[in-house]
């Protein structure tokens, strides 16, 4: 299958279109089947992925607007491969666990379209194609929040849409400007990211462009102080919306930093380490505190997402293989763990129609299986070794220590503050006596719920104990990126700070 990437993008979309003719009662089964096939296809992508190759693979290129160098240009490397896998997996699991009764068919079709846009973002190598999928992904999410959400759903949906849309428009201007510069330097138009990588830009250009891209990505991540759309979106979105939002949509922002900002503007990135690290540290500490103050269980997880995204951000700007590789790994880890946590909150919400922790207490005795899985995800979330959460967080902090010990200590408070708010959630909800009459006869996990959570538990432990199959390809592509960032950097400062691992340079010499 040479055009596996196109298949991955358009299979869910075409299946979604066909979904309109599927009978309402079988819509759910149909959706799960499509998502399962899509997941298997992405697994096939992984198995045929050449882990020894750090560059782009499965490349496809079809000219779209040849005069302006806009091409339908796709490819994956070690960095995007696993994010794609996570996307297809979380879509599948989200669908399996979905408890929505209203308009199931519309929801399934929306999710399939959303899947197309998400996969599209992570495989696009042409800026225009990337931008198209990036913006298109807003529409299904707007619809999910706006149509299936809570009482404030319209406000939340519009806020989410306009806020992120505004950021991306600035990014679009940045993209057009890069293309313009490319044209004025080389005489040809190109929107191919790989062409842009070769472009050596003067530092002041880099700074302006960095800022333009930053706005688009930072709102998506969301970085402090652009994060306030997120709690509303999570607060109003149905469980499935929150799962996809936390697991995949936020990763688009951090992925953008790795795919665009670092390799295209290495000098500006190095200059921006301190401001970004400061914002990230505020994000980590401040939102961890806000999370602790929440009374609603879902809001705790929502704010904790912001806090964890801070760890990812700081790792990206560590400018070494440990930090960036750790960040990419942490994206996967956060996707799995926060997705699972949102699903878990959804499960209790389905039973009690409330998410307030004061309504619970003593659930461990009533719902032991639920408590065990919640406990495992909690431990992964606070970064316990041998769970998926540790590997990324450890590497990020280790990597950033080379940049600044003091800031690493501040960012490292995440392991303390994370434990504070998560354990407090667990104590309030699961420990103590069962005080509320309604909680005394709650049903433990049903088979459907169990089977959508168990695979995630398995992944959490598998990648915590043996992260190598994932970490190695990531590491390889990150090393390659660092090598050319270092070569390309103009300023001495950037050359000094961007650190190519010794293992990567020696391999280069042997070749």
């Amino acid at each position, binding site marked *: 299958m040479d055009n596996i990437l196109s298949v991955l993008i358009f299979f869910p979309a075409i299946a979604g279109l066909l979904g309109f003719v599927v009978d309402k009662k079988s819509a759910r089964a149909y959706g799960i089947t499509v998502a399962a096939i899509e997941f298997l296809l992405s697994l096939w992508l992984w198995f045929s992925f050449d882990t020894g190759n750090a560059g782009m693979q499965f490349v496809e290129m079809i000219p779209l607007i040849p005069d302006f160098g806009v091409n339908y240009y796709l490819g994956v490397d070690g960095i995007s491969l696993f994010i794609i896998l996570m996307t297809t997996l979380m879509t599948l699991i989200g669908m399996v666990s979905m408890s929505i009764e209203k308009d199931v068919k519309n929801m399934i079709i929306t999710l399939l379209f959303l899947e197309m846009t998400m996969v599209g973002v992570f495989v696009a190598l042409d800026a225009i194609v990337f931008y198209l999928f990036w913006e298109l992904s807003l529409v299904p999410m707007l619809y999910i929040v706006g149509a299936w959400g809570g009482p404030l759903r319209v406000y939340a949906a519009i806020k989410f849409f306009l806020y992120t849309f505004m950021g991306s428009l600035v990014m679009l201007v940045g993209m057009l400007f890069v293309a313009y510069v490319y044209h004025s330097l080389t005489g040809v138009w190109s929107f191919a990211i790989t062409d842009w990588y070769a472009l050596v830009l003067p530092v002041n250009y880099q700074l302006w462009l960095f800022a333009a891209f930053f706005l688009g990505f930072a709102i998506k991540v969301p970085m402090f102080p652009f994060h306030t759309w997120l709690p509303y979106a999570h607060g109003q979105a149905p469980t499935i919306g929150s799962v996809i939002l936390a697991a995949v949509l936020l990763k688009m922002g951090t992925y953008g930093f790795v795919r665009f900002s670092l390799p295209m503007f290495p000098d500006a990135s190095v200059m921006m380490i301190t401001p970004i690290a400061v914002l990230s540290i505020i994000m980590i500490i401040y939102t961890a505190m806000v999370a602790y*103050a929440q009374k609603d269980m879902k809001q705790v997880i929502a704010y904790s997402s912001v806090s964890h995204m801070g760890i990812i951000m700081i790792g990206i700007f560590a400018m070494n*293989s440990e930090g960036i590789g750790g960040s990419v790994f942490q994206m996967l880890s956060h996707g799995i763990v926060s997705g699972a946590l949102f699903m878990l909150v959804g499960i209790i919400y389905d039973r009690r129609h409330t998410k307030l922790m004061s309504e619970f207490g003593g659930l461990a005795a009533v719902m032991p299986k639920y408590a065990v899985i919640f406990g495992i995800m909690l431990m992964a979330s606070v970064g316990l*070794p041998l769970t998926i959460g540790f590997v990324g967080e450890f590497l990020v902090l*280790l990597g950033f220590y080379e940049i600044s010990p003091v800031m690493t*200590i501040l960012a490292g408070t995440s392991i*303390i503050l994370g434990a504070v708010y998560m354990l407090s959630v667990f104590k309030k909800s699961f420990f103590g*006596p069962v005080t509320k009459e309604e909680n005394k006869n709650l049903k433990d996990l049903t088979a459907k719920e169990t089977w959508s959570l168990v695979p995630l538990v398995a992944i959490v432990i598998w990648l915590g104990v043996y992260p*190598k199959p994932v*970490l190695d390809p990531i590491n390889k592509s990150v090393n390659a990126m660092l090598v050319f960032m270092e070569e390309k950097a103009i300023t001495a400062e950037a050359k000094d700070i961007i650190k190519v691992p010794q293992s990567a340079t020696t391999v280069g010499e042997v070749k």
Partner: protein
Amino acid sequence: MEGLVYIALFAPFASSLFAALFGMSERKIFVGVVASVLLAISFVASAMLAFYVYGTGHAVHVTMMDWINAGDLRIPFGFVVDQVSVTMMTVVTLVSTIVHIYSIGYMDHDKSFNRFFSYLSAFVFSMMVLVMSDNFAGLFIGWEGVGVCSWLLVGFWYHKPDVSREENPSISPSWAANEAFIMNRIADLGMLIGLFILYWNVGSLQYDEVFAAVPFLDGTVLNAAALALFIGAMGKSAQFPLHTWLTDAMEGPTPVSALIHAATMVTAGVFLVIRANPLFSLTPEVSYFIAALGTFVAFFAASMALVNRDLKRIIAFSTLSQLGYMFAAAGLGAYWIALFHLAAHAFFKALLFLGAGNVMHAMHDELDIFKMGGLKKVMKWTYLYMGIASLALAGIPFFAGFFSKDAIIETAWNEGTIVLWAILVVTAGMTAFYSFRQVFLTFEGDERYKQYGIHPHEMYRYVLIAMSPLAVLAVVAGFGMEGFEHFVTKLLPDYHMSEHTHHIAWILGLVVLVFAVGGIALAYKKYYHGLKRDEKLENSWYYKLLANQYYIPVLYEEFISKPYAMISDAMWNKVDMKIVDATVDGIAKFLYKTGDETRKMQTGNLSNYLNWMAVGAVLFLVVAAISAAAIG
């Protein structure tokens, strides 16, 4: 030999998984039996490895597989069985096996019996990973693993509600569990920083590579690394100011206290310092700080034990105090003596706790020693065990504690740190006093429990038999001191007393003995014949200060927990909602309003439009003129 390493390591893991299979079903005795047998297998494998290492002098080193590879970082799952780790392995598995068997009896009425064994074995597995790993990251796996198991086990009776601090100083099991986990996490950050420092200066986290490289590192780097690692050690070993969790952890079932909060997990910090001795030997300032803090904690904890009425908390304070002794020895460079005290202490302290468990079992979970008394009539064996353990703890010749603790006190003299020596000697007297205050108040004198309608009974026979190896070791372990020194100093730096100290060793020993016997005599005088309450003393400010643990838990609550909650709340309600989000909405509203207002220009009236056109034209002209001037 490799096979034995894996058996020793994974038998507890198998046990945990096996028990977990029945975790949600009702109590099944065979789960406890199977778990105990698997633990015994692990002990036998450890003992065989100990013989092997003893006989050949070689360490066994195995690498199972890669764990994390990123950049230049290579972390394998590697395990090393050398003199130090094999000592720890043997002690840990021996005490664990006994505690497992003990728990079959102790937990026999608990409906979560199976779950208990799953957690307990998981703890042993984590502890084995901690002591056997051949690198700092592997140690950290075990380090966090024991933390989680401790969280699970302290909070084992999670259904109990929170109560006020006056009613129960630990508030509730789940509260105590969270406190323990969070406080350990604070220290773990220090530990992680230590790892980062070592990695960026050495390029590896493997013990052998790090220790080979430390002599070539800069002094400040070494100091920073040693201090950061020691901060990690302070959390697990509950050193001041991170000590409050340990006494609160007594909310867990008593076998847990015996295993985790006395014999094994809390010694992890001491183990770390011993393991990283090549680093700490090069940082005399940090080492001296460790010794000084250890000595302070020894005294500080003993002082709180003097007045406490809670059977388990007294023993917990004594654990804290003895950990202080171990750190004092390690900080002064006598690593092998610290390790020896660690092992000896594990035996008699586990025995003491299990004895306390017997008393609790008999007294229907009553812990107040003021409500006991005269229990010797019904609990002869427990009295004997606790008596032996207390004699060992007090350092009476020729029990185990006599050899190990005396050696530490002698080291303090030998190093010329007379102040530390004096404090440690006084603490030895206090130790003897509070130990026997507890023993006498529990077992001798009038039978106060009768007022409370309790009918105590002795523990099951098989439990008492299971405890006997600990009792034997508490008596005889000291005689193995020379052999132990010979064994472990193949790896650890040897430590000898100077000629001068050697000459006056008997005088030094006598001084300690006088204090110890004096402490026991005082306890005998005051408490042997029953409890005579001294209202005046109990109402004095210093008594209250000690009884309230110097008010430290209250201070932490008032100055850390509550402000943190308050600030968090303000961050959410004031900053996040009122400033950050309000600004965003403000901008959006402004744009919306502007649009709404300018919409009114569209009146449909031609003359209005012409007016606006004129305004626009003038504006354009002005802009054009200004830019022309700017460019020109």
